[in-house]
């Protein structure tokens, strides 16, 4: 009894210091993340805010930075975003439903599929770009068009959407499925009337986060041929550029004015991405179910 109490007392100071050190480390990690982001944002804003104006939104790029805008790039980014959602959500949710509700895990091909999807999520985006160049642009003969760009970004974010949708579907408790089955519902009815509605908030959140990741990508678009100088508004099967590509091109220019222009385009891109992310977080907090 006494020995036990003594043990408690002698150990305390050492544990205390380890705890304090660890706490300090945690605060430091947090600060590094916050300060880096803060510094970046501050720098971009200070440099670019004055050029976020109508010219940026309504004019095409030009050799003269004072009249140059990013309208084609902004529009293309919006088009790509819409296509991206239209492609990834049905494909991703469909795959997730198959894997969670239909696939028999005892079959080797289903297990292989699962491992494959996990791995695909970790493949660098440039590799997707090469795939897009080889398969979509040349193999299918699509050419260097906006559609090819949207398709390759679809492949890029698809694993993320699948994983998010699977998590959401898995979070629907089995007791709900059993209750529906016990009432004579078919598998189709169970999935459509109980599982999917229950998983919808999670699927929506995951899809939007995946969308914002896709919109920020540059490398795969460069490879499938997003041009750095496009002076006309994009079409589905025409040459295109996108905001990140436009930013990349402007930064690479020697003139100081173009860097300011790049900073203002970064503000626009960040505004789009942060809005999407905020919307996703709002969706999650508003509709997420606690079973």
């Amino acid at each position: 009894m006494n020995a036990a109490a003594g043990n408690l007392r002698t150990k305390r100071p050492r544990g205390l210091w380890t705890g304090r050190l660890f706490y300090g480390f945690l605060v430091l990690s947090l600060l590094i993340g916050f300060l880096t982001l803060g510094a970046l944002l501050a720098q971009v804003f200070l440099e670019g805010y004055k050029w976020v104006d109508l010219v940026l939104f309504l004019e095409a790029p030009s050799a003269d930075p004072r009249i140059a805008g990013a309208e084609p790039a902004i529009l293309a980014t919006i088009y790509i975003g819409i296509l991206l959602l239209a492609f990834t959500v049905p494909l991703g949710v469909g795959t997730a439903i198959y894997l969670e509700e239909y696939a028999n895990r005892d079959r080797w091909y289903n297990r292989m599929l699962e491992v494959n999807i996990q791995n695909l999520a970790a493949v660098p985006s440039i590799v997707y770009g090469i795939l897009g160049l080889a398969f979509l642009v040349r193999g299918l003969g699509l050419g260097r068009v906006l559609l090819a760009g949207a398709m390759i970004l679809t492949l890029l974010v698809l694993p993320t959407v699948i994983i998010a949708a699977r998590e959401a579907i898995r979070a629907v408790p089995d007791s709900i499925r059993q209750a529906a089955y016990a009432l004579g519902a078919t598998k189709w009815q169970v999935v459509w009337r109980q599982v999917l509605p229950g998983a919808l908030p999670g699927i929506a959140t995951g899809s939007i986060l995946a969308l914002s990741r896709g919109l920020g990508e540059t490398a795969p678009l460069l490879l499938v041929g997003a041009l750095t100088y496009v002076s006309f508004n994009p079409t589905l099967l025409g040459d295109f550029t996108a905001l990140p590509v436009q930013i990349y091109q402007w930064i690479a220019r020697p003139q100081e004015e173009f860097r300011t222009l790049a900073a203002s385009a970064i503000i626009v891109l960040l505004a789009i991405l942060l809005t999407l992310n905020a919307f996703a977080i709002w969706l999650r907090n508003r509709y997420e179910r606690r079973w």
Partner: protein
Amino acid sequence: MSVTMAGVNVDVTTQARPLPAKEFREVVFDVKDLGVSYSGNQALQDVSLEIYRNFVTAFIGPSGCGKSTFIRCFNHMNDLIPSAKVEGTILYHGEDMYGPEVDAVEVRKRIGMVFQKPNPFPKSIYDNVAFGPRVLGMTDGLDERVERALQQSALWDEAKDRLKSSALSLSGGQQQRLCIARCLAVEPEVILMDEPASALDPIATTRIEDLMHELKKDYTIVVVTHNMQQAARVADMTAFFSVNRGEEGQRTGILVEYDATSKIFTQPSDKRTEDYVTGRFG
């Protein structure tokens, strides 16, 4: 009649109505040599018994004796577990429930189930009850159907003014009665109840038991319970299951004894049943 069971006086007379003689009973389920295995592990073996119409039949026994596995055979719920394999036969009104042409969905229309933990859908009270009729296409007179089901499950008075509010706002006991209403709304012939009151407080439990007495006029009820007093209170027939341990320690559920409830609790013919109902085992 009152018996002393596990030191508690249990009144077994209230529901021990004189059971009709065997030749006047209508057999709903005729189970023959039923066995269930999961991935080759035998969970239940050689069960044969008959379940009669408008009876409450209770399955009792210690944990792991396969009583829940058994009740899930009656509505093909074991089909949802890919590794589960059912052998032997269950005749439902003479028709083989595990025959090659049998559709599990058709079976579950006629044989409803209430689960251990209340599991209402995260929808309104109305939509919970209406779910079954809707998926089965019985949408004519849906409002009346929902009302009737809620009345039968003794929830109408509490729920009629809040049909549109979430089922999750109900108390646990109310949720379980909602699950019973949901099951009644599709007008099944049989209601399977897998420990329906084990997650509820004593008052809610009493209401569920009263409900079972009420419902057996119109339905055939099969109930799994680990609460012996409950079996004694509600059941006409009781089946006692036990566990056989194999040479390598594998546990297999077996049916030990099946008889009128009053007989099981007062003069069981098997020593193992007697040990269990007197509290010496389990």
